[in-house]
């Protein structure tokens, strides 16, 4: 809500996102030489989620909205998670 805080340091977020993107590509390329499949997967997904959250919080200003509003717009995430988890048994019992 607070208007005076609605101007985050965009450049710092931009640089963070670029660094994370470079790290992601490097991690993906290093994996072709090593056998660290699971660690690489966790690293990659973790960095992607970090970047996505940065976009939502700062570029889309969610950080500066009211709590009620954040809860309302985050609700679909719960259903989206169910979409993914609902498919897990299909993989597990294949």
């Amino acid at each position, binding site marked *: 809500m607070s208007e005076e805080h609605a101007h985050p340091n965009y*450049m710092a977020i931009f640089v963070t996102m670029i660094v994370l993107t470079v790290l992601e590509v490097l991690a993906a390329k290093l994996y072709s030489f090593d056998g660290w499949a699971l660690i690489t997967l966790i690293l990659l997904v973790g960095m992607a989620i970090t970047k996505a959250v940065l976009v939502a919080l700062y570029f889309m200003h969610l950080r500066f909205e009211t709590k009620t509003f954040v809860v*309302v717009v985050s609700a679909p995430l719960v259903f989206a998670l169910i979409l993914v988890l609902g*498919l897990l048994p299909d993989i597990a019992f294949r």
Partner: protein
Amino acid sequence: MSEAAAVPQGTGSKPVMGVTSGKFAMWLFLGSDGMSFMGLIATYVALRWGQHEIWPKPSESLAINLTAFNTFVLICSSVSMVKAFAAARAGNVAGLKFWLFLTIVGGAFFLGVQAYEYNQLIFHENLTLTTLPAHVIEHNPNATTLFGATFYGLTCFHGFHVLSGVIYLSVVLILVFLGSWTVNRIEIVGLYWHFVDLVWIVIFTIVYLVE
């Protein structure tokens, strides 16, 4: 009647939970749109994880470096969008026009690279909805063609969002030139544009980078 007159009429910006109704509507749309993407992503993960031994490695046929650069361009266009919004809030119309234009250029560039990528994949690599590149089959004779189908399904659905975004931004820019704009309207188009960027970050990682 006197009570009704006290409510601002016709502005379309009566606040809901501290935000304008237009912004609220865009967030609701993005929530449902995110569900569509999540459905596609969940399907992709389930199909791929369920048969990972016959799933071709993305780096064998996809151009990772080119797409990483494209990701960079999309992130840059997101930054130019926040710059446009900041200019709008400061009442800097020249800045608003400049940053909006730059955002459109970024989106158009992304689409251009994607068109080039599709052209390379379809006509040079033979990666289509039902076929795989020859070198992939040579390496793994049982490789599944779902690789191509899911790749085009996901990236094309996202590409249409970028195309829609470029058109949407262009309409907004024309309205700015006509003098018909509000800070609220700039913020709403920005929300859509950042969402397209956010989704691409996820798609780039799971489709291109995860081996």
